[in-house]
């Protein structure tokens, strides 16, 4: 390990970019142009830096790497701690990959208040990356909540017609969940006297406390994931957010919930996790089947993809709480895959929305006639979302189902049936928009995707295929950390069982 603070650099470089943009002065046009390019260059720089993380990352160890520590609030043992392991590192990359793509995607779509928009996005990137890197509960919470401010503004200022309602719904739902998590964090601090995550991962909390803490964390993460029945903010937020906002929302923000379950609930509160796993299964299965059915009935493309997100994230939560190597790895791959695929699908919708200013499915038909390249890209992502072998979606879903079968056959069967529904709504969407005869007059002049748009989709397609064809390069990264989580979990369960067995059969 080198001793320079790579993670802090990755986290705060976008913030520096935001500060740069803040001080841009001049004519309206110049400001907009400069803001766009500064934002793009800074986010690309961040991405390049984070690639260094990928290559220098030591596989096969569960330890936190690139760790940093600076004492922050001395009396309270709170430090600024950063570090990544196999679970958080891929998410850092996901965030840094999606941000420049979002900025590219907003290049022409955002025309008003470009400067503020770019600042909001770069601040958002800092918060997201910081959240995945944070190794102190308080620092984690600050980043976790800090995301709300830029996202609220992005939805509210640059969103669609019902943006105010959606922005508020998003904000209040998430806040209500997270303040309970805050109390849980305070309670953990009170119980143990530390907020240092690596140490807490080794600490055992009393079973009764675990239950309450688990529920408090659950309140926050379930809203973020989002799990049925608290998913209702998601379709609204997705539909009203500008394209890039939806991309980040689906691509990264939803992963915060899954990441939270994996980082906190499972390792720190293993006994409660075991007790409540069934709750997670039930809610997830409902999410998978119910939201898939709801997706079938949607008229609005973004809403359809939003509901599909809820279904896909349902698989993630099932995978995590199977606590098997395959299940958790599957959940991780599924999250990464969904991060890329749903982001891409929102961008796909964004492409035609920019041209026709409508997201309604009935506004489109037979696009393949005028937009063959577009149809091809749409197909790749649509199939990845369905889970076609060879794409990333397949790997994730397959592993999750393998994990689920080991633990609970009924859950696995129900989840698998959800996947069939998934294929149904995605193929149905694709048929209505792309195939058929082009009957709408105004579609006759629609243009196929431009070079800029191709440049956005190319890396996403590459990642989707890479993950689908050779998932090992991702699984290698996370395997050791996942195994560590599972060992920890089982050791904790065994330790809790120990005394009760001893009570049943006392040794003479």
């Amino acid at each position, binding site marked *: 390990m080198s001793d320079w603070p790579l993670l802090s650099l990755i986290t705060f470089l976008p913030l520096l970019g935001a500060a740069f943009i803040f001080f841009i002065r001049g004519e309206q046009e110049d400001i907009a142009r400069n803001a766009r390019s500064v934002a793009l260059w800074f986010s690309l720089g961040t991405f390049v830096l984070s690639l260094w993380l990928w290559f220098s990352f030591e596989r096969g160890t569960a330890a936190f790497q690139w760790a940093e520590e600076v004492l922050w609030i*001395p009396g309270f043992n709170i430090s600024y701690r950063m570090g990544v392991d196999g679970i958080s590192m891929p998410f850092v990359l996901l965030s840094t990959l999606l941000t420049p793509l979002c900025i590219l995607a907003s290049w022409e779509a955002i025309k008003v208040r470009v400067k503020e928009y770019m600042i909001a996005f770069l601040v958002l990137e800092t918060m997201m990356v910081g959240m995945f890197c944070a190794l102190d509960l308080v620092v984690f919470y600050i980043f976790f*909540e*800090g995301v709300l*401010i830029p996202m609220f503004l992005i939805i509210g200022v640059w969103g669609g017609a019902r943006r105010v309602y959606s922005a508020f719904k998003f904000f209040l739902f998430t806040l*209500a969940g997270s*303040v309970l998590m*805050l109390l849980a964090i305070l309670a953990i601090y*009170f119980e143990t006297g530390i907020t240092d995550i690596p140490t807490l991962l080794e600490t055992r909390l009393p079973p009764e406390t675990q239950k309450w803490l688990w529920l408090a964390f659950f309140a926050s993460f379930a809203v973020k994931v989002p799990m049925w029945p608290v998913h209702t903010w998601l379709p609204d937020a997705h539909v009203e957010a500008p394209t890039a906002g939806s991309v980040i929302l689906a691509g990264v923000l939803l992963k915060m919930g899954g990441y939270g379950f994996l980082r906190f609930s499972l390792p720190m509160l293993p006994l409660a996790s075991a007790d409540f796993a069934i709750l997670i299964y039930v809610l997830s299965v409902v999410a998978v089947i119910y939201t898939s059915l709801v997706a079938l009935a949607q008229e609005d493309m973004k809403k359809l993809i939003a509901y599909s997100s809820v279904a896909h994230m349902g698989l993630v939560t099932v995978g995590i709480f199977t606590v098997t190597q395959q299940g958790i790895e599957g959940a991780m791959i599924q999250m990464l895959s969904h991060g890329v695929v749903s982001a891409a699908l929102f961008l796909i919708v964004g492409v035609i929305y920019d041209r026709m200013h409508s997201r309604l499915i009935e506004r489109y038909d037979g696009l393949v006639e005028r937009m063959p390249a577009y149809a091809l890209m749409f197909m790749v992502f649509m199939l990845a979302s369905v889970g076609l072998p060879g794409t990333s979606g397949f790997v994730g879903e397959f592993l999750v189902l393998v994990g689920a079968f080991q633990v609970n056959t009924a859950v696995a069967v129900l989840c698998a049936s959800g996947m069939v529904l998934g294929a149904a709504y995605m193929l149905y969407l694709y048929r209505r928009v792309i195939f058929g005869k082009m009957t709408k007059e105004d579609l006759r002049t629609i243009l196929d995707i431009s070079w800029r748009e191709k440049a956005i989709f190319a890396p996403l397609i590459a990642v989707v295929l890479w993950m689908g064809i050779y998932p090992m390069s991702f699984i290698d990264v996370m395997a050791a950390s996942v195994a560590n989580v599972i060992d920890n979990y089982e050791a904790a369960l065994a330790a809790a069982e120990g005394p009760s067995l001893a009570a049943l059969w006392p040794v003479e």
Partner: protein
Amino acid sequence: MISLDLTSALPEVFLACAAMVLLMLGVFRRAGSTRLVLVLTVVVLAVALLLIVFSPDDRALAFNGLFVTDNFTAYMKVLVLLGAALTIGMSLGYIEREQMDRFEFPVLMLFATLGMLAMVSANDLISLYLGLELQSLSLYVITAFRRDSVRSSEAGLKYFVLGALSSGMLLYGSSMVYGFAGSTNFEALAEVLAADLAFGRAPSLGLIVGLVFLLAGLAFKVSAVPFHMWTPDVYEGAPTPVTAFLASAPKVAAMALIVRVMVGPFGDLFEQWQQIVVVISVGSMVLGAFAAINQTNIKRLMAYSSIGHMGYVLVGLAAGTEAGVLGIVVYLAIYLIMNIGTFACILCMSQEGRMVERIEDLKGLGKSNPLMALAMTILMFSMAGIPPLAGFFGKYFVFLAAIKAGLYALAVIGVLASVVGAFYYVRIVKLMYFEEPAEVLDRPIGAVLRLMITGTSLAMVLFLLVAGPVVGGAGAAAAALFAG
């Protein structure tokens, strides 16, 4: 050694003398002296601030034990003086524009500040009352300072009548306490109660009744529910700089007083007063959150907001521990700065030279004055307690204390109220950014206000960097209170 030791009261003595000199100056120079007197007032406050910063940290008594200074009083006095100096400084433009520029205005504020310092340092029920009344009487007058305005006079009258009622309750409570404990001195009271506890005697009922009245009188001063009724009307009716003043320094002083009285002499009655504090804390948080939702006047909104904030501060008191007091101190420091910043923004709200105070008037500020809108956004998110802004840390430390003290239900109600509260703060952000401007607010805004707004909003963002020292200082302040 108990004696008439004036050195520890040096800042107060200086302030009292300076106030009288300034009064003379105003009287003899008459017309056109307001600006000079106001600037000198701010200078005097700054000097007093320095005197406190550079005074020794040790606990010291003066005036035969009526007056105490320690780390806690020093920290609180710094906050009071800072709040007073900033709010007086930013009132200049307003009083000149609104023809309120009489030299009595800053001088009265100076007297009120002196009263607050006396409150913070009170070590006896008598000196407590003296400080409180000096503060209150000055505040009644400046609330009604625009005597030709019906609203201002009404606010002043309302404040006076209800304030007199609360003072009455306070005095009644004090007399009960004196009657049943035999002393008004805080240390003597603590000894009596400790002796009761040591011999296993239940505290006498009369004493507890006295304590309840005392607490009711003090709760009025911090406008905690159910003694909050005056707050929205007075805030709305008073001239805006006075409202800013009311919402900042006196709140800090009164809260410091409550903390000292409860933790000091009545520390052994913790179980008795904890229930009361929990109830008024929950009431304030919940009412502050829900009642603010429907407000259309921004000053009324700020009134409910301050009721809510006082509820959060009382959460720290309900914990009754050193951690709780630390939380209170941190919260008050942040609240003060945040509040001054918000009022600086409100003072900038004018259209064609006429002050406006509807929330609606902020519509589209994001377009018409992006920097002010940004500052206001930061302040509002901070008020709502969203990290990484300063407001979050205040809530963090009080709720930490509540959890430590096992007050789980209180903590849960508190955070949920903060979500409801977030709604109305964020609504202001919504108006500024998500809607088109109806009538544009005047620009440019004065240099003092601009400085104030920039400074406070930067403080909210950069609090992260100074969190260590601020919390450390608060820790020392809290420790001072629990040392004796």
